[in-house]
């Protein structure tokens, strides 16, 4: 009987995680519309519910009720499976994120490595969407996104290695515990800058939102999707936003420290994550976007050498400090 209970307990944890994911996506969409609206000298949603809090829910319900249109000559399998696959990495990573000392769905030894490995799968779904849509605009958008995400995965991962060297482990809980003296944003400021910039590029956020450049190729790979398939791309983008900001909080801002109590720890962790999300939205409503070749230059010629230099310097300093202590 024991295996049956263990299975049920694991299933319950995963259901809570999935529910949390979807609610977070709704909250983030509402937050984006309000924050961006206020920065643009106007109010966001106001009518449904007090201050418009139910707006996103009603939008999701409306999108669910739309007609199921599949254009004529699409490539059936990539077109239909792309909106599904774009959600898979997000949900998987959620199972690994620790919110407090004991609150984590599954805790494996090398969770940081696993997170980065799975994050790359979302690129494939964009390419599938671009190809399967049988549309030149979508193809252009899909190829641009493939180039962009490939270029920016490498600085993203390399900037996290500095943190791993300093913490001595790839386990996310261990990394947070190792920040008890000082948050890693202070010694690893360069890595933080590289991480956040590459994260914006991974998420297709302005100033890097070439794949969905609305004024040029009219929504890029999204162009032939309508109804709930469009909603799933949209939601996946916001879930990824939350995940990356949560990762940044864990790696650089100390996770749930200094509270070890699970309730206070989770709340403080969420508070730090939402500050980072707010900064992202602030950047989104201010800057224009780069051209494709310009931010390839930016990624390969600036961020990649910066992150390599960071690893080198961190490793040297850690080695020297260890030897001095050993003496």
């Amino acid at each position, binding site marked *: 009987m024991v295996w049956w209970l263990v299975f049920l307990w694991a299933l319950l944890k995963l259901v809570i995680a999935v529910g949390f994911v979807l609610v977070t996506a709704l909250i983030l969409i509402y937050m984006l519309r309000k924050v961006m609206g206020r920065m643009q000298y106007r109010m966001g949603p106001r009518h449904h519910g007090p201050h418009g809090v139910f707006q996103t829910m009603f939008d999701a319900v409306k999108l669910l009720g739309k007609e199921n249109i599949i254009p004529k000559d699409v490539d059936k399998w990539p077109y239909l499976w792309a909106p599904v696959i774009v959600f898979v990495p997000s949900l998987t990573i959620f199972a690994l994120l620790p919110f407090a000392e004991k609150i984590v769905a599954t805790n494996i030894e090398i969770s940081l490595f696993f997170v980065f490995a799975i994050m790359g799968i979302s690129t494939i779904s964009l390419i599938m969407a671009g190809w399967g849509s049988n549309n*030149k605009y979508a193809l252009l958008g899909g190829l641009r996104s493939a180039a962009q995400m490939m270029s920016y995965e490498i600085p993203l991962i390399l900037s996290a290695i500095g943190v791993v060297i300093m913490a001595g482990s790839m386990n996310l809980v261990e990394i947070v515990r190792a920040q008890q003296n000082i948050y890693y944003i202070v010694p690893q400021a360069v890595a933080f800058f590289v991480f956040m910039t590459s994260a914006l590029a991974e998420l297709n956020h302005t100033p890097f939102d070439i794949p969905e450049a609305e004024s*040029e190729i*009219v929504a890029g790979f999204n162009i032939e999707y309508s109804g709930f398939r469009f909603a799933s791309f949209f939601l996946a983008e916001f879930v990824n936003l939350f995940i990356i900001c949560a990762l940044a909080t864990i790696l650089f801002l100390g996770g749930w420290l200094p509270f070890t109590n699970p309730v206070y720890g989770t709340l403080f962790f969420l508070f730090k994550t939402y500050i980072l999300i707010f900064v992202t939205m602030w950047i989104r*409503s201010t*800057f*224009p976007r780069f051209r494709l070749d*310009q931010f390839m230059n930016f990624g390969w010629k600036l961020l990649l050498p910066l992150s390599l230099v960071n690893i080198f310097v961190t490793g040297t300093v850690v080695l020297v400090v260890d030897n001095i202590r050993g003496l």
Partner: protein
Amino acid sequence: MLTEEFEKTVEDLPKDYMEVNFGPHHPSTHGVFRFIARVDGERIVGIDPVIGYLHRGVEKMAERKTYIQFKPLVDRLDYTGALLNELCYCQALEKMAEIEVPERAQAIRVISAELNRICAHLIFYGAIGLEAGAFTPFLFSFAEREKALQLLEMLAGGRLTFNYITIGGVRKDIPNGFKSELEKFLSIFPKRLKVFEDLFTGNEIFKSRTQGIGVIKMEDAFDWAMSGPTLRGSGARFDIRKAEPYSGYEKYDFDIPAGENGDVYDRYLVRMAEMRQSLRIIEQAAEDIPSGDIQVKVPKVLKLPEGEIYYRNEGTKGEIGFYIISDGGKTPYRMKIRTPSFSHLSALGFVLKGAYIADAIVILGSFDTVMGSVDR
């Protein structure tokens, strides 16, 4: 080492260019404009523009209407700066019929025309932000434009098309309270302009999107009949308001900005500087408006003497010209309207050779075309 034969066969290979259609429904082509771009990867090899979606046959309609009946149609040519079209038309008729416009009407004409110029340049500012990718400046500039449009509504009675400047003067006098509202606007607007400039002028991303893009040399600009801010961005400091002054512009003191490099960034800077110069003109004109009538008595059905005239004005986008052939009757025999966006758009294929697709949209935005005046 390639032999001659091999080189010849390489040249004969069919090149596979992709044809991308930026259709009439597009968020970034200003109005209904379609162009088919032949693209090699991300670089444009050639374009084929298609216009005529907004063609209303205005020149043919002019031959059946009297001069005063035709005047509201002139508003709808360049609908972002409608008062300047009317100004050109009415002044062409006044020159041919030798009608003197009273000084009060001239001052009011200048104030309303320069306010309209500011409105049109604010649309340009919002649109180039949209094309570069930032959504916020669009909303900021439309909020400012709202205040200028309220001023114009108080004065002229309309927001987009006015029918206010008439042959021999203007139609209505300045209402009470207009001067105080105008002073409020003139004190707030320069600070808002500074905020707008801070958003874009020093921004690294905007500069790397617009500097060095779409360079037009001065000889090419003359050849392709460009005028207005597009020509001034390429280095020719020329303005019809200074070269052939009309409607009292010789009394006011203003500078003409010009750009050195001829790229998109310079055209943007020229238009931002022009807004400040327009504010200067409005201040000087509103200081003391001479008293008198606002309109000269003109016969109800105006008959022009026989002859032809080409008259031109500085519109918001460039040179607006009317070539009127009159045979002495009530209706014009031929009315040809020369608009700046028509010539600018014809040069698009020349400017876009070898540009990226992303740049093509920004360059089209910097020409600041409005399809009502291309298609007439």
